């Protein structure tokens, strides 16, 4: 086997789903030179040909990795980035390839819609956690497609892991049970999570909004909720509903305005 020390480390980190960014000079001196950047505080491996260029690209690669973005960035030969410093300088173009860990989806409520949503979310590459306080329902046997099944209430779950949620992640609350929904919404709103969807009929939704206001949540906070959950595509089965929810997650992320159930009125199943 040929010697490829940077590739070996890069491949091992990707397999372990650890965050890693690989910077490659694609234009300029040292074409093909590599710098491997991780988030564990270790020094980057490799070099792009100049220590200052390595330092600046290493910094930028961490930011790209945090945002899960891959793309080309331009620098001067010594890592210059400001337009004034780049005048009359040759430009080095560097491709930064980010391998962020998969986004997470937390699904609250071990109901019949949960299995379908977990399956569709897996297709989209999510790391799926199903959470319900009822241990007869929240079992790995019922949700073999989930990465984790946790028998717990929402509050301890958010207390323990809520800080890990990022704008790339999603929380879907499917329980319809106020004593579970209310703490789940409160927990989700206290995180940076990018999508919070809550299932229910228009009537359930209206009652729930009253309960959420009663526990002190403001209308600005509640505006983050996608409730009723999903796009208005006429979904009926658990599988169709799962597609409607995942389509809404994609549309919100990409900023497309497509009709969400949140923005319409009338019966959901018409």
């Amino acid at each position, binding site marked *: *086997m040929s010697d*490829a020390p940077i590739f070996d480390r890069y491949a091992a980190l990707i397999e372990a789903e650890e965050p890693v960014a690989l910077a490659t000079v*694609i234009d300029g001196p040292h074409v093909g030179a590599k710098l491997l950047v991780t988030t564990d505080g270790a020094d980057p491996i490799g070099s792009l040909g100049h220590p200052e260029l390595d330092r600046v690209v290493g910094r930028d690669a961490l930011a790209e990795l945090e945002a899960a973005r*891959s*793309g080309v960035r331009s620098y001067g030969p010594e890592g210059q980035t400001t337009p004034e410093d780049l005048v009359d300088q040759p430009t080095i173009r560097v*491709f930064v*390839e980010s391998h962020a860990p998969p986004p997470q989806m937390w699904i609250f409520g071990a109901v019949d819609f949960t299995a379908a949503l977990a399956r569709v979310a897996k297709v989209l590459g999510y790391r799926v956690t199903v959470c319900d306080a009822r241990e007869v329902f929240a079992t790995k046997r019922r949700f073999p497609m989930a990465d984790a099944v946790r028998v717990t209430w929402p509050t301890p779950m958010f207390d323990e892991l809520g800080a890990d949620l990022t704008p790339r992640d999603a929380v879907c609350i499917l329980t319809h049970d106020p004593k579970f929904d209310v703490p789940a919404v409160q927990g989700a709103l206290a995180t940076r999570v990018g999508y919070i969807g809550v299932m229910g009929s228009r009537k359930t939704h209206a009652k729930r909004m009253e309960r959420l206001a009663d526990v002190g949540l403001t209308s600005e906070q509640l505006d983050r909720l996608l409730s009723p959950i999903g796009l208005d595509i006429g979904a009926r089965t658990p599988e169709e509903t799962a597609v409607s929810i995942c389509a809404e997650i994609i549309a919100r992320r990409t900023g497309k305005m497509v009709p969400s159930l949140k923005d319409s009125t009338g019966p959901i199943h018409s």
Partner: protein
Amino acid sequence: MKDLLGDIARWRAAGERIAVARVVDIEGSGPRLPGAAMAVTESGEVAGSVSGGCVEGAVVGEALSILDGTTEPRVVTFGYSDDEAFAVGLTCGGTIHLFIEELAW
């Protein structure tokens, strides 16, 4: 790249030399995002894809010319909108820029 790791490990264990093409930039409508990758061995085995299938054949040719030393690692461009582009086009009308190099790092 993740979906290529299994094939790459197998090829390296068999002592094959490998070229990797990665999408680094797209203009207009591109079928695969930056980071999409394709790997080609000296003996012409292929894994992965960098477009909807439109330019894969031409990329294999480029990859083999890197492995036999005819061309240096470089950015190649495929698409309709670029005068420098190869004769091969993307049916979606976009332009993709690929960086192709030998996997020896």
